[in-house]
């Protein structure tokens, strides 16, 4: 009995001595999806509903810094649609129309993936992080961070993020809306090292309310590329 108490005190001391820096951890998490300042990534999303899967939706995401992103819809049925994010604002452009439609990052892109899940992935700029505690998830020790939205363009109001204590890889996350209700959860499934960069290859987003409804996001190809500013402007004239 005395030995147990002695050991737990020692471990607690060790743990508190190694209290992680939440902001640093978050930046590290962001780098898994944003390996460079300016890049293009092809994303494929497959939606599953009660075991039935639909066809893969393809997107080409152009990212410049944390404030500009542009998504091109590639799937045949959605061809011609684009999504533009500038700072806190987001619009969708439909073929054969002359005006964009203002939308929010929380709105659905496809399946359980919101617009923000694909176009707004810099959590360090969008959220303030606080370290809550270390706890085990499926046998693995994880640091639990609580993220609170710090700008009006953030996708969610609150996120709980579990990062592996050993290497800060994300294990899972829970996403909440303004009312406090949990909307979804996510697991981060596959990683790959490319040219020394550790990148996320696939994650799954689950609907919190409906069992059997989830979407798998696959990051098919990352390409570092320098992107001109005129690609990210609001008008409809030629971007390329």
């Amino acid at each position, binding site marked *: 009995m005395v030995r147990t108490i002695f050991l737990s005190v020692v471990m607690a001391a060790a743990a508190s001595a190694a209290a992680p820096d939440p902001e640093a951890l978050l930046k590290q998490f962001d780098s898994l999806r944003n390996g460079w300042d300016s890049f293009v990534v092809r994303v494929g999303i497959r939606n599953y509903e009660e075991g039935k899967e639909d066809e893969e939706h393809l997107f080409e995401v152009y990212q410049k810094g944390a404030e500009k992103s542009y998504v091109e819809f590639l799937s045949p*049925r959605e061809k011609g649609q684009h999504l533009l994010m500038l700072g806190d604002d987001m619009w969708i452009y*439909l073929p*054969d*129309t*002359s*005006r*964009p*439609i*203002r939308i929010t990052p929380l709105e659905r892109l496809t399946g359980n993936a919101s617009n923000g899940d694909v176009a707004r992935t810099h959590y360090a700029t969008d959220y303030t992080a606080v370290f809550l505690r270390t706890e085990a998830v499926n046998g693995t020790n994880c640091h639990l961070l609580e993220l609170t939205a710090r700008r009006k363009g953030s996708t969610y109001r609150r996120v709980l993020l579990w990062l592996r204590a050993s290497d800060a890889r994300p294990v899972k996350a829970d996403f909440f809306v303004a009312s406090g209700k949990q909307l979804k959860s996510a697991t981060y499934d596959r990683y790959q090292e490319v040219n020394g960069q550790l990148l996320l290859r696939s994650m799954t987003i689950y609907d919190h309310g409906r069992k059997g409804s989830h979407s798998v996001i696959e990051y098919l190809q990352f390409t570092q590329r320098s992107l001109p500013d005129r690609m990210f402007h609001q008008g409809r004239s030629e971007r390329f």
Partner: protein
Amino acid sequence: MRTFLSLAFRNIFRSRRRTAMMLLVVAGGVSALLLAGGYFSYIFWGFRETTIRNGLGHLQIFNARSFDHDETRVLENGLTSYENIRTVVQATPHVTGVAPRIEFYGMVSNGQKSGTYMGTAVVPAAERKMHFVPDVLKGRWFNLEGSESEVIVGAGLARSMNVKPGDGLTLLAVTADGALNGIDVDVVGVITTHFKELDDRLLQMTLPAAQRLLQTDRVTKLVVGLDKTENTQAVRAVLASRLAGSEPKVILKDWQELSPMYKQIVLMFGGILAFMGVIIFFMVVMSSSNTMMMAMFERTREVGTMLAMGTPRAWVVGLFVLEGALTGVLGAAAGLLAGNGIAALLNRAHIQLPPPPGNSTGFPLRIFHVPEYMVLASILVVLTLAAASIPPAWRASRLKVVEALSHV
């Protein structure tokens, strides 16, 4: 029998002043019921006709599936190949027009701001034929030469999207296949339905434009207009039989089913009227019971004499009840005259009333002359007075002859 009637009648006028008082109360009660009932009838009529002419129509025809199954995709339960149905309906007597409609929701953008709209797609010529043209505040409604991409917006939506006739908007909607689609449209008019909640969201477009946006050739329903609202049930029966074997199977709804508010309004006001009837009943009973009892006492010796002469007690009861009923009849007649007269005068006065809840314009006061209410009110007071005369009548019949004869 005639003599008894005559006796009862003459007895009523024994005390002119007392009878006049009773008649005043009865006539007042009847008048009140007629005026209230006539006013309520007008309200029902106004609400009914406004709702119907605001585009509800007299009958609507839907795909029978739409009431059993929820739609997961827009127009999943819509009407396909509706032209033959339309022909059948158009050929039915009393039908003034058949208008196909699509109703759906979507998002609208003016370039800076997005909002949601409640879209109604119409065939302008069909709507015009049935006078379903709403009140235009700015610009114009659809005309027959206009392009497919014209839209009309409600006043509230125009304000929130900051558009006026001549401006453009982009409409976004989910198609029948579940994909996102958008079209550019031009605002040609701003309208009001006089209901704020509708004006805030309403967007009317042409049927071809909606079918292009939603990628479908179906419609939500067919709206049928009739020459007179009174013909609704008859035409419904005819259509039900004529469309019995149609493909797809259709279901008919009349304006009453489609406007639950109408039924609620009728019930609510009907309740108020019934409540008034109860109050008037008590007022009449209370004011006449004492009078009739007094009148009976004054005739104690007379009743005693009649009983002495061998008049059956039942005749005595009958006489008093008859007197009560006759007073009721006279009072009702006076009330009918007064009530209808006051109603006619008020109708001539052209008084304006403030807008009802939810509306934005006032309307003139009118009181209908409703035969049903006249009959009911008359029956009510006759029965009330007959009933109120039973206690004194009963007492009169129970008099001991000798005591009655020595009464003062």
